[in-house]
């Protein structure tokens, strides 16, 4: 025995589902407003079918829902009746075809699996149109046609419709599984303060949550921690995890590290932990490459480092499309897995500073030793990378905030550098990092660069590479920012110092 519920427009599907689940665990959602139920065995609880239908309608009414109820021996018959008639309809088992015979043919398009979306496919409408052209008006007339002739003329869709018209089920009921909630809550007898006691509570909550995720082969994509405080407020934190994970210790550590940075402002009397589940990870390790640390380890490490060094102070550097000196961006550290072992790719960037002869030399080197690996050469008994580079590229140590200095210039060329601050007391020694000044032995420049003049972060300067007599090579620049004296690109300290010359970095 099957029942069908058809709710009024605007009904909450979840509410309709909960009403149906009160009567049967075997329900199938047929649409946002329609549900079919397997009512077998309910007679012993409620009595005959009509009583069950009344009970269904009453329960729905208690929840504020207006529903039609139909009960029949087959799901198809119940669905057709619930679309046709308001209120309660009960059909005795075995009489479905007879009772359906008088119903209009158009009902089939409501219950059929054949798409009747006018934008997607017109198959349902075309089928209905064909049947009407044949002079058929009711389900009984259609059901009476020979099945093989219907199949020959209308195909499988026609056969399916004819079975529906006879009240036969095209397939068994496929029960919908209730949505699983991955959530754990603990009411505390006494409010707790501080993260240490909270870590025990979180550990106790994470263990069953992790076991639940493992049973369902799910991982947490987002971790929600809700702390109900004694002040009647809720402190809620959500952590977007870099990869699906379900390790209880890793989840607890991540939640704690986040709460260290964003602590609740009162004692906690209820803790709820919930996760948004996602299918678990399938990991295939390689015998040929060194395995990367797991996402759990990496996310725990980066969370610890962020707590230690500050937000945005650790990650992977990224070049940005800008001419601004020293421009870069940070992004989360998420190394992709590599299938390359000791395969040293050609380094295009190193070619930028190399001479043509060096580039040619490297090309020659590449063609000579295509085999990847190591060799023992005549110079050394130790293995040496076969594709070792001839010359590296000189690196610069860049001061994130340029250091203001005094420079004596003749004919526009710097002659001497003093590291003492231009305005006494304006700068501390710590900003100088033990740099030494002195006479400039060689200077190359100026290289003029400017940009972003349309923004507040404009720069306009002459760069110099200078070598001092003590052997240290600096990159200096003379700031040429606008005539109003606004050195927007520099720090407040540098602006206060009203400096003109700055050290941008050290060649090292």
């Amino acid at each position, binding site marked *: 025995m099957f029942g069908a519920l058809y709710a009024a427009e605007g009904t909450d599907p979840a509410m309709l589902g909960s009403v149906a689940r009160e009567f049967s665990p075997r329900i199938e959602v047929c649409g946002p407003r329609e549900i079919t139920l397997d009512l077998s065995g309910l007679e012993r609880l409620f009595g005959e079918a009509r009583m069950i239908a009344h009970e269904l309608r009453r329960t729905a009414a208690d929840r504020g829902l207006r529903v039609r109820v139909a009960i029949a021996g087959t799901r198809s018959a119940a669905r057709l009746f619930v679309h046709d008639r308001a209120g309660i309809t009960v059909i005795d088992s075995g009489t479905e075809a007879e009772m359906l015979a008088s119903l209009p043919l158009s009902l089939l398009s409501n219950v059929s699996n054949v798409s009747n979306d006018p934008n997607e496919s017109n198959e349902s409408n075309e089928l209905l149109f064909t049947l009407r052209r044949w002079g058929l008006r009711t389900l009984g007339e259609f059901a009476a046609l020979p099945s093989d002739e219907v199949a020959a003329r209308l195909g499988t869709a026609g056969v399916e419709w004819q079975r529906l018209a006879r009240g036969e089920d095209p397939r068994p009921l496929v029960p919908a599984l209730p949505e699983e909630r991955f959530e754990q809550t603990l009411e505390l007898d006494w409010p707790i303060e501080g993260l240490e006691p909270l870590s025990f509570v979180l550990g106790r909550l994470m263990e069953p949550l992790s076991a639940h995720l493992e049973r369902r082969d799910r991982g947490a994509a987002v971790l929600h921690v809700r702390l109900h405080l004694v002040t009647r407020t809720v402190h809620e934190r959500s952590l977007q995890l870099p990869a699906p994970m379900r390790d209880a210790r890793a989840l607890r550590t991540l939640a704690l590290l986040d709460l260290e940075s964003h602590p609740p402002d009162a004692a906690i009397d209820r803790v709820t932990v919930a996760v948004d589940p996602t299918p678990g990870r399938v990991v295939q390790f390689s015998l040929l490459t060194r395995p990367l640390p797991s996402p759990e380890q990496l996310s725990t490490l980066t969370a610890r480092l962020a707590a230690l060094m500050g937000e945005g102070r650790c990650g*992977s550097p990224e070049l940005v499309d800008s001419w601004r000196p020293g421009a*870069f961006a*940070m992004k989360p550290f998420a190394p*992709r897995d590599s299938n390359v072992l000791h395969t040293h790719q050609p380094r295009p960037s*190193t070619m930028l500073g190399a001479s043509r002869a060096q580039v040619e030399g490297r090309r020659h080197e590449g063609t000579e030793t295509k085999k990847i690996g190591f060799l023992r050469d005549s110079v050394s008994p130790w293995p040496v990378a076969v594709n070792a580079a001839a010359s590296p590229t000189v*690196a610069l140590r860049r001061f*994130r905030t340029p250091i203001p200095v005094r420079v004596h210039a003749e004919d526009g060329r710097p002659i001497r550098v003093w590291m003492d601050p231009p305005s006494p007391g304006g700068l501390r020694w710590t900003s100088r990092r033990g740099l030494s000044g002195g006479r400039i032995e*060689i200077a190359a420049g100026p290289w003029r660069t400017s940009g972003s003049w349309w923004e507040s972060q404009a720069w306009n300067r002459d760069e110099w590479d200078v070598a001092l007599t003590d052997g240290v090579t600096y990159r200096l620049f003379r700031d040429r920012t606008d005539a109003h004296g606004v050195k927007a690109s520099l720090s407040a300290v540098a602006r206060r110092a009203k400096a003109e010359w700055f050290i941008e*970095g050290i060649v090292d």
Partner: protein
Amino acid sequence: MANSALAVLETALRERKLDRTLTTALPPLERSDPAAFIPFDLAAMDAVLRGGLPRGQVSELAGPHSSGRTTLLLQLLGAATRGGEIAALVDTCDHLDVASASAAGIDLERLLWIRGEAGPIDRLVDRALKALNLVLQAGGFGVVVLDLADVPPRVLKSLPFTTWLRVQRIVEGSDTACLLVGPEPLARSAGGLTVMCTGQTTWNVDAPVRARRFTGLETEVRVVSPRRRVDGGARIAAVANDSQ
């Protein structure tokens, strides 16, 4: 009496796995295995280091400003990341130039960059050491570098020597090569290598003054090993990158 006391001490050290760092009876390192070291991808450098920096040891790169330490450091990170490893750089004073790193061929996605914040230098060093410990304890990195190149010597000298012993204890037995970069040798690890750098920039001095240009950096490296297993020197010429 003295011999028996020495034997007891050596046994105790061996039990605590400290024999490798504190005693003279060191088993020879199997340096012929390419997987036992991280190469610089510089023929001269790798030859003098007999393959590269040893894994599971604390090595050092020391020298004054403009000696080529950073060039070699970025070269090492580039070689490691191109070889499929992941690397970490604890940048105490936040002086990494990302353009230089890219020019050195570093796969930036495989580099974990930990940047120190502005503040008192003692606090910066303290945080950098904590970050180094965290990264080493996490494991899985091919190279982990602590850059102390711009830290004043007085601050470095105030660090207790046990700091480096602790670092050595964390890293030993792992596949990670730990590298300290500073103005002078700090850890003097028995198993690691200490590379001293001196450098001189090169210029096209023959050109007219207006056309003069910085062309590169010649670095002379000298390997200083307390056990003299590796000794020697090499000269490495780095070329200036005009795109920086």
